[in-house]
């Protein structure tokens, strides 16, 4: 963990975009022990309720009501039950499709829009920003019922596409705002020199901005994916059959033995299971979040 000195990459457009990623360290040779205390505290804070969830998922029957810290008879039965539930597996498939498609399309559309907002001349940016914000601010509950009727009319009810479209709509504002903010951070000089080299704005966008905006893109991808994955209200309003239901709705349909029962064991198990794709996504993306810009090249 020694400090690396920042290299100076060449000013060539092509190589700059492919400049080697390096760790950007804060100049720490070693970590202060207080920091480790803090690390442990943060991990504890994040994990305890999650631990409780896992704890509950390993219990069944009457032991669910004893507040034991460790299950006295841990059992994987809840997980088995969940995995053997064909509706849950269908819901997993649905959620993956919906989340992947929505995130990808949102990233593409939003990065275009963010670039235009952050960099290009355009009229009425303030109005556009306000309109975008209002889309995401409008309470979903007020539009759920109208959407239900409209979707039934046009045949999108109870379909995956019928879920992707509204989720995309409500994910775009977050994505656009986040990317606009991050695109704005990228120094203009980089594009200027691209223009000098004869690039069009769109090429500058593709070859200069996008590679440098990777932390912003990765962050946005994670945030959009998670929000789409966990969204419940529209999902429950616009679907009715297991073929179209995403995972949060499927979990709600887990039944106990009576109408008053909340099957905490299986709900917990399912909730743990569905964090796995999210964990994989984050593990894949987390390096990109801090891959850093070769800002040293510009400011020197």
């Amino acid at each position: 963990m020694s400090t690396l000195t920042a290299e100076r990459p060449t000013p060539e457009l092509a190589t700059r975009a492919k400049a080697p990623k390096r760790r950007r360290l804060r100049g720490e040779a070693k970590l202060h022990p207080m920091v480790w205390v803090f690390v442990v505290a943060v991990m504890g804070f994040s994990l305890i309720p999650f631990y409780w969830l896992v704890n509950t998922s390993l219990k069944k029957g009457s032991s669910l009501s004893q507040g034991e810290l460790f299950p006295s008879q841990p059992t994987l039965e809840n997980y088995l039950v969940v995995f053997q539930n064909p509706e849950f597996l269908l819901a997993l498939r649905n959620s993956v499709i919906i989340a992947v498609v929505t995130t990808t399309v949102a990233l593409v559309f939003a990065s275009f829009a963010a670039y235009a907002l952050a960099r290009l001349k355009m009229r009425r940016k303030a109005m556009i920003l306000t309109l975008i914000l209002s889309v995401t601010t409008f309470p979903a509950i007020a539009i759920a019922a109208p959407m239900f009727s409209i979707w039934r009319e046009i045949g999108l009810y109870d379909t995956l596409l019928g879920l992707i479209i509204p989720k995309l709509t409500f994910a775009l504002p977050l994505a656009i705002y986040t990317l606009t903010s991050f695109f704005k951070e990228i120094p203009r000089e980089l594009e200027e020199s691209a223009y000098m080299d004869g690039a069009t704005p769109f090429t500058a966008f593709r070859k200069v901005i996008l590679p440098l905006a990777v932390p912003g893109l990765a962050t946005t991808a994670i945030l959009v994916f998670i929000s789409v994955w966990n969204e419940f209200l529209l999902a429950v309003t616009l679907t009715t059959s297991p073929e179209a239901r995403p995972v949060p709705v499927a979990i709600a349909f887990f039944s106990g033995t009576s109408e008053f029962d909340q099957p905490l064991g299986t709900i917990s198990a399912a909730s743990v299971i569905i964090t796995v794709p999210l964990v994989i996504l984050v593990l894949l993306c987390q390096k990109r979040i801090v891959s850093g810009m070769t800002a040293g090249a510009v400011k020197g």
Partner: protein
Amino acid sequence: MDLNRPALPLQNKARNRKALAATAIAAALLLSACGGGAAPQGAEQAAAADPASGANASGAVNICGVKDASGIYKGTAEAFTKANGKVTAKYTEIGATTDEARTQIVQRLEGKSTECDLFVTDVIWTSEFASQGWLLDQTKLVEANKDRLIPSTVETTKYQDKYWGSPFFTNAGLIYYQKDKVAKPESWQQLYAEAAKAPGNGYVYQGKQYEGLTVNFLEMLYSAGGEVLNDQGDVTIDSKETRDVLNFMSDGLKNGSADRAVLTYNEDPARLAYESGDFGYQRNWPHVYRLLNATPLASSFAVAPLPAWEGGKASGVLGGWNLAISAHSTNQAGAVAFIDFATTPDWQKHVAMDYSQAPVNEAAYSDAAVLEKMPFATELLASVKAAKPRPSSPVYPQISQAIYKNVYAVLSGTASTEEAVKKMADEITTAKASF
């Protein structure tokens, strides 16, 4: 200063205006389509279900309702299909919780959907749905089946002197108690007194700010002789009985009969608390019996019907589910046939034996096979027969909120009994005057 003003912004403006106009037109079209302009269609205009049609029914029948936790809906649909031969019945789960199911049902009824022929409706939804003209009038059908249905359960489907559903299975509160610690409660006063005697004797009930609190409150109020609405529909909740019950419940929390924790309990947390063994009494629905039997408390608990208020008759509140026929159903005959099947004494026995639900047929409670599976059937029958429906009104949700919010305020100490009663009466009066 650019002399040649770029044409592009104007083009953009024109394009924007066109887009705006197109959206506005589309919106207007949609609105006019949804706005209706149809004449009001309420309970008065509703068509009646013909009891005789069931015999010649054929085709498919779709029953929609809440998540089928106990398996009773799917089981009944399958058994009916097998027994009938001409009609095939299917159950579709459309809501994960009772509230969610109501939303889904309302959405379909408002949208005049033909997807569902029958809805499984909570007993408190009947007046609402009937007043909107969404259901078929089942008065003749209920008359025809009168002999096999417990009268109190039939009353849950009544609105404006007609019947809008057939009871499928019912529900009434029971008191579970620890035989070794406390005595069988003969009155509410005795129950609370016993509960206060020792810390491990406490009483748990559903005291969270939700519909369940209305049920718990009314169970006592009815027995004390009070009511919310009288037969003419006037608001009569501002009464001595209401004040007595509120004071009684509130005192119970203060002197240790009930733990303050009940303010956070609905059905399941109350059951779980009781299962920990730290309490003496529990008010809950019959489904808890089977669950308690699977715990270490199995040998030490007993069941009693809800006690009476001192000086009053034992009473209670009816829960349960009805079968309502959608006014837009495309197979009314099939729906009638299904209802006929579901209410037969024979099937009602299965309702008890196979699905642990409370039947609406009185004979089922004394059947030997049923008693084996449900040893508390006699107590349950007593509770069911003594119970009354909750206030029947299209604005029942608002009435219930007025009750549970104000009762909770008294229990949690943020309002005095006097204030709460006045507020309840005001809010219910306002609700009843709803447009």
